[in-house]
Every structure is written in structure tokens, then in C-alpha cells.
């Protein structure tokens, strides 16, 4: 059972030879997961702030629902979005099924609860004085919002990274909505799943190594972009 040396060699081989198929699936994976994370973040950040900061009657309920949705299985998201974008669904005309856009649609739904819940937790833990001070400095609602995001930025970035990790390593949604079509919607994870089904564990692992290397690279860049020095100092 020497999957590992085999897997590492294969991974290196695939990377060094710039295997065109591998390049293609890596590009697809990246494009999809970055788009999903971006869109989900745009939605989740304000959503989390509204939930964390506003007082409304159903707040308790919304919070529990949000925590519940953290266990949303990919299959449920897959079937749900499928029922919308399938030919017989209400969005069938748009022809999103088995396209990268279809996957993004599903992944966005998958991680909105995660990113929102994590950012909500961050906002909860912020010092109340932040808001008072912002108001007294003459901040408009919008500016207060921006100031809050800036204060909570490390926590928010942490939540977004968790969301990105989730979609990059996710299989179910990509499989059901993308269809793992070679050259079109095949991603690193669906390819891995395929190889695993074929019994080619070493090859699947090689793809896994590539995926993790990619993730490492992206996290490295993020780390330095987010004022690595300050981050490390704390």
C-alpha cells in the first residue's frame, strides 16, 4: 500500500509536465471556487452584520437557523439548485445545469451560512464602544458599517478563508450541478472522486496534493496581503 510515494511522484509529474488536462481542471476549480467565495462573501458580510447588530423579534430564531444551516449537506443544496436550474425548473431556460455557473450557484448557497455565521460570531465579540465612538466621530450609517468591517477585518478574512476552503474541497455540489464533464465542469475534486471510483487511489491522492498545494499558495498570498506583519505580531 504505497499510495503515498506513488501519489507524490505522480503529483510532481503532473505539475512538472504541466499536464494540459490537469491545468484545465485546476483552472476550472480555481475560477469556480474564487467566484463562489467572492459572491458568497458579498452577500454574507452585510447579512452577518445585520443579524449581529440589529434587534428584531426573530433574531434568536434566525441565529439558530443559521447554526442549523451549517450542517446543510451538499446533496441537499445539489438537489435544491438542480430543481431550479433543471430544464423543468423555473430557471431552466437559463441553461445553467452542467455549467461552471451552475456549480457557483450551488456553492454560494452552500457557504453563505458558514461565512455568515462565522462573521456574526466575530461581530458579536467586538467591543461595543466601537459603535459609540464611530457615531460620536460623525460617521454616517454607511461609514459606521465600513469602520466595523475594517475593525473586524481579521475575523472576516478568517471566515472567508474557511468558506473558500469549504468550496475548494467540496465534491457533492460540483458533481451534481456540474456533472463532472471532462473539459467543461471537471474540477480537482470531481476528478479525484472519479479516480477514486476507478480504484486509482494514488492518482486521486496526487490530485489531492495538487489541490492542497494550490490552497497553500492562495493562503500564503492572502496572508501577506492582509498585512502579514500585524497578523503575526498578535
Amino acid at each position, binding site marked *: 500500500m504505497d499510495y503515498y510515494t506513488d501519489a507524490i511522484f505522480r503529483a510532481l509529474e503532473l505539475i512538472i509536465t504541466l499536464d494540459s488536462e490537469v491545468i484545465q481542471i485546476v483552472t476550472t476549480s480555481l475560477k469556480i471556487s474564487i467566484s463562489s467565495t467572492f459572491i458568497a462573501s458579498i452577500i454574507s458580510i452585510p447579512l452577518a452584520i445585520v443579524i449581529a447588530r440589529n434587534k428584531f423579534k426573530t433574531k434568536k430564531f434566525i441565529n439558530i437557523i443559521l447554526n442549523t444551516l451549517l450542517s446543510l449537506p451538499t446533496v441537499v443544496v445539489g438537489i435544491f439548485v438542480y430543481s431550479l436550474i*433543471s*430544464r*423543468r425548473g423555473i430557471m*431552466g431556460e437559463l441553461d445553467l*445545469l*452542467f455549467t461552471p455557473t451552475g456549480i457557483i450557484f450551488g456553492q454560494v448557497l452552500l457557504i453563505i451560512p458558514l461565512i455568515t455565521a462565522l462573521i456574526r460570531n466575530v461581530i458579536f465579540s467586538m467591543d461595543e464602544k466601537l459603535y459609540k465612538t464611530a457615531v460620536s466621530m460623525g460617521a454616517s450609517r454607511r461609514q459606521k458599517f465600513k469602520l466595523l468591517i475594517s475593525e473586524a477585518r481579521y475575523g472576516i478574512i478568517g471566515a472567508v478563508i474557511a468558506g473558500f476552503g469549504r468550496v475548494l474541497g467540496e465534491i457533492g455540489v460540483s458533481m451534481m450541478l456540474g*456533472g*463532472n*464533464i*471532462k*473539459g*467543461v465542469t471537471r474540477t480537482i475534486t470531481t476528478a479525484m472522486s*472519479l479516480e*477514486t*471510483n*476507478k*480504484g486509482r*487511489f494514488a492518482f486521486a491522492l496526487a490530485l489531492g496534493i495538487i489541490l492542497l498545494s494550490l490552497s497553500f499558495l492562495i493562503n500564503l498570498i492572502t496572508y501577506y496581503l492582509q498585512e502579514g506583519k500585524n497578523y503575526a505580531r498578535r
Partner: protein
Amino acid sequence: EVLTMATTTSTENSGLLEELLPPFEEKFEVRVDVVAVGTGAAIELGRNGDADIIFVHAREAENEFVANGYGVNRRDVMYNDFVILGPPSDPAGIKETETAVEAFQKIESEGAEFISRGDDSGTNKKELSLWDNAGITPDGSWYLESGQGMGPSINMANERQAYILADRGTYLAYSGDIELEIVNSGDPVLFNPYGIIPINPAYHRHVNYQLAMALTGYLTSQQGQNIINNYQRYDEQLFYPSAIEAENLEE
């Protein structure tokens, strides 16, 4: 142009489609998108009009599909065969049996562990019909339902030193990594016919019926059938063409 074909995982895993489809894609300047899922899911995709054509092996379900008007012009394309796998030590002595039904009866009487896919796939349906023929209702601790695809199920049988019904293609793909051996094969009831069904354009107006028919034509043509006939893996032929007579094929 794009033609979406829903098929089963085992078909795609065999690698046949990568030989079979490119000449068609070239000739018709079309891209064939292969979506490989479970048999039931492939049929459901067809029913919802999310595929232009389906390529599966589950004769009864296929007939029902056509009878309900979801598909038209079903054609037989090819068949392969199922084999019964078991541990090399063959504790139930299946190697001595002749027919598949005999083998199943012996497995049950010896109480040897058997892995069923239990997923309503073509393979699963074939297995259940064999139990039926053997007059046995499989039940008990020796009978495990894996609820998974062929490959993982073979792996499970290998891990647990159990018997299993598998398609030859997947078995061959796994044969390098597992200890299981073929303990029974060749019985005609183990043949596994594949059919292709274009989706009914009267039911789903948007489907690419023209191209679906073109693909049907191509697969059942001499060219398509030849490719199937000549496709080899692990030095064995995996599929046998069934649309035209053997004497009309070329090497």
C-alpha cells in the same frame, strides 16, 4: 454544438467513451458532454430533459422509460458480462459451480458473506433477479448492502473477503489492487446489455434530437461497433457489439 449524454459511472470508468466519442465529435463538429451518475439518476436526468440522450444498462427501467414516452428509438448498442468474484480461498466452493444461479444458491447455503450494491443500478437489478431465479430472498447478516458504486463495492468485498457480482470492466480495473478472483462467469444470464435512448423531442422540445439520433446512428454503425469490438483494456475485450452481426465487423 453540445450534446449532453447521461450515462452510468461504470460506462465512463471503463474508458470506452474516450475512444468511442471523439470520431463522432469530429465528424459532426459537436461536443459530447458526458454526465456519469447512478443508473436511476441518469434516467431521472433524461426524464427532466437535462440530457439529450441516455446510455444505460437496466433493461426493465429502459422499457418503462420508453413506454412512458420520455424516450424514443431505443437501440441496443453492446453488452458486456457480469462475473461473480470471491476470495482466492473460495470458502464457499463457488468455483465448482456451473451456472450463476447455482453459485448464488451455494453462497446462501454456505452462509458466505455477499456484498450487494443495493443501489437499484443495472448490476443490482441483475443480482436481485438472480436471487429470484435461485428462489432465495437474500436476508441476514451474510448479506451486506453497500449502497455504493461498483468500484467501492468491489473494494469492500475485497476487504471483507466476501463474494460479489461485478461487471467485468470494473473488475479488471481493480484487479491489480485486489485479491478477489473470478469464481464464476460465462453463464449467458450474466450478459449485460447496454441501450441508448434519445429523449423524446415531443416531450422536451428543447432537446437536441437531431444530434441524439446521429449519435445513435453512429454508435450502431459499423464504425461505432468496430471501435467497441476492438476496445481492449488489461489485454481483454470489455464490450461486445450487439447492433450488427459479428461477421460484419472488422478487426
